[in-house]
């Protein structure tokens, strides 16, 4: 199995605050890496750094063996290989569902209108959203919006999908319809890195679970190891709190 993403000794700070501290991570092809940890532990920043939305202070990011943390790299070209889904959906409100999905295939990949539309329609049908194609995002429920956002990000066939707490803005009833798409994508062999607070979901999809605390990975391993039998006292403490909040 080839390595898709490799992070070597990443450091990132905002002013005096060190958000990522000497963090390393390897993501093999067709695997899902789940980042868990309290808010402020650096999960989102890590994903934004991978996507080059933030510049790292030190270390290296390699995508398919090529360093993308090089300032001379064409960031647009790198981002074409990466899909990103945000906590707040970030759909384009002035475009219909279909237009949201076809924008990048047409403008970035140079596909024809028909080609892009057919591909988008196929994806919408697959995830039970075919009837929403011509709706504007504000007519959709949060769960539907996030599903569209996921479809939008996979419409460009990314090499790696980054999911940043994609269910945190949803009520519990809508969470499952979003997570089931991610399960399907995982089943398709999509390589992904995701930050989540849904421990049950993490157990289902994760090939590796990483517990982040103060910008570093304190514990990593299979979902069973990290989530059921954590060794690090801080992981144990975090999971205990999650458990008390009823999210495990």
């Amino acid at each position: 199995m080839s390595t898709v993403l490799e992070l070597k000794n990443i450091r990132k700070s905002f002013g005096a605050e060190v958000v990522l501290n000497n963090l390393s991570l390897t993501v093999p092809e067709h695997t899902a890496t789940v980042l868990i940890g309290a808010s402020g532990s650096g999960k989102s920043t890590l994903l934004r750094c991978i996507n080059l939305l933030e510049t790292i202070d030190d270390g290296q990011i390699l995508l398919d063996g090529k360093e993308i943390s090089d300032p001379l790299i064409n960031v647009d070209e790198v981002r074409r290989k990466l899909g990103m889904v945000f906590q707040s959906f970030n759909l384009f409100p002035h475009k219909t569902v279909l237009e949201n999905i076809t924008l990048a295939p047409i403008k970035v990949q140079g596909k024809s209108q028909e080609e892009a539309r057919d591909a988008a329609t196929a994806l919408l049908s697959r995830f039970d959203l075919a009837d929403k194609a011509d709706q504007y995002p504000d007519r959709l429920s949060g769960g539907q919006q996030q599903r569209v956002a996921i479809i939008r990000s996979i419409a460009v066939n990314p090499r790696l999908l980054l999911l940043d707490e994609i269910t945190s803005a949803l009520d519990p009833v809508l969470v499952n319809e979003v997570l089931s798409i991610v399960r399907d994508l995982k089943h398709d062999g999509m390589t992904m890195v995701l930050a989540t607070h849904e421990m049950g979901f993490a157990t289902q999809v994760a090939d590796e679970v990483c517990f982040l605390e103060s910008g570093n990975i304190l514990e990593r391993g299979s979902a069973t190891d990290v989530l059921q039998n954590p060794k690090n006292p801080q992981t144990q403490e975090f999971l205990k709190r999650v458990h008390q909040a009823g999210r495990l």
Partner: protein
Amino acid sequence: MTERNNSAWSPSSREIERQVSRRAINRKQAIIAAVSSFLVLGTLAVVLVSSPGWQTVKTTFFDIEYGKEVFPTVIKGLWINLQLTFIGGAAIGVIALGLALLRTTKSPTLTPFRYLATAYVDIFRGAPLILIILLVGFGVPALGLKGISSNVIFLGTVAVVLTYSAYVAEVIRSGILSIHPSQRAAARSLGLSSGQTMRFVVLPQAIRRVVPPLLNDFVSLLKDTGLVSILGVTDAVRAAQINASRTFNYTPYVVAAILFLLITIPMTRYTDRAIRQRTSAQSSEGAI
């Protein structure tokens, strides 16, 4: 989904009582409004008509016969104002968009233009329009440049366009800045370049957002085209002025004012409606 059929519903006796009370309240409010309007407007009318100079004002400002006589020349002048508004408006739209984009760009190649655009906006937004009209109208012909028209209508339009481009550029720029950074992040993470992000994601939303203030500026533009009359352009204001100074009867000014109002009032009403639709679209729920 629950059935939400309204046809099978008939109001309860309590609701019927409430409807009766509501009608009574509405009737009372209508009466109060009518009495209040009658008192206020009536008093104003009485004060106006009983003022010592009313007879003179009536003959020098509201001479209907003379008004009819000058109407064709004033409306001919108004046509100049309208042409100026529409041709100028188109030019303003293009220039202002360019200025707004330059002021928000981060491209290093365009850095000098960004500074120039900022200086331009500072100057033309800060100086009174009438001064710009005088400077352009009398200054440019004095330069004696070949190929530059010294036609007053052209120069007047240029002056108005120069000034309004600065105003409108700021309105568009504020629209661009009001789009949340997460929209840009989403577009960039799909692989769109910064130019594509501006064109397909940021700008369409920004323009939609600033349509009401732009309509507002459009109404102001129509009114301010009257200022080019100081260069000697025979617009509605100038036509009225010529007639008024010929006979010392000021009715032509009133005619011009009414003609402007006939255009600007519907435009402002339309703007208000656009603003209302904008706000109701943003706050999707509630009856307030």
